[in-house]
């Protein structure tokens, strides 16, 4: 009886260990191959891809060849100087579209930028997927880059990636 009990104990421990390791690989598609640093690098260097008119005063027009990093700097400088952030809604939507295209399937992006001169808990700009949840998550991967404007303002751009939450679970 003692031998049988020990055998069953060993069997259960081994089965649960190998079951957990194989299940964890299946439950997290995309986690192993997503590199937020690589995604942020190609995102900032890419062009916006289409012309956009910013309805600010004076009105600004962004060319399709303009790089995302330059457009981000224009937007952050405008917001920092007291401009209305709502006029950049279409540009932010374009940024989110690019991020969703290059993120691994099942991953949700969040782009946050801060002014280094200001408090770090007051982001200048937030571009997020609607499925991104605001509570503290343990499975977030992040990368950051710094950018300097012509007015010598330094901004920290952070890209966070997390497994997408099902839409029906967001309100819970």
């Amino acid at each position, binding site marked *: 009886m003692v031998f049988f009990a020990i*055998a069953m104990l060993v069997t259960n421990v081994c089965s649960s260990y190998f079951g957990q390791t194989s299940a964890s690989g299946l439950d997290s598609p995309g986690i192993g191959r997503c590199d937020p640093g690589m995604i942020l690098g190609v995102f900032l260097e890419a062009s916006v891809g289409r012309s956009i008119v910013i309805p600010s005063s004076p009105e600004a027009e962004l060319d*399709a060849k303009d790089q995302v990093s330059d457009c981000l700097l224009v937007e952050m400088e405008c917001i920092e100087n007291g401009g209305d952030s709502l006029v950049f809604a279409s540009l932010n939507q374009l940024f989110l579209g690019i991020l969703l295209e290059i993120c691994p399937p099942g991953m949700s992006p969040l782009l946050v930028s801060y002014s280094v001169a200001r408090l770090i808990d007051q982001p200048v700009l937030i571009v997020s997927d609607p499925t991104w949840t605001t509570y503290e998550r343990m499975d977030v991967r992040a990368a950051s880059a710094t950018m300097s404007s012509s007015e010598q303002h330094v901004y920290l751009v952070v890209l966070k990636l997390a497994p997408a939450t099902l839409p029906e679970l967001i309100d819970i």
Partner: protein
Amino acid sequence: MRIDDSGVGGFFEDLPVMLFVLAGISSLIMTGVFASEEISRARENEELSFIAVHMVDGLVSHCRPVDGGLPTLGHIRQLNTTDICRSLASGRHFAAAMIMHHPGYELLCQGSDSVRGPACDAGSATRLLNALDENGVIAIVEARVVAW
């Protein structure tokens, strides 16, 4: 004449003990077989992932021009992904593709050395890179390799 049934009784009394011992031994053997299969499968997947990473890195290095600038979409479209990956595949089967995600979606090139896809175990790797299109727009291209 007395019937000696003590030996038969002893045998049947020992049967449950023997069954418990046999069940314990069989469960240990089955666990050992299961564990060894899982370990060998994990090693196989790790090796396939390493080969896939090696192939996708080789593919990306073939895209980049020697002067260190951005590759062009025209150059990527003309890449022979099958030949490049075959030289790095270490005898494994593979499928490779270069896909543009931004500003539009386009399958730039693809290649494979097998008409059949991966049966069970496979390793995969992806890399993102920027490339110039004909109009001077900087696109985002993904290099993707599956090895099995």
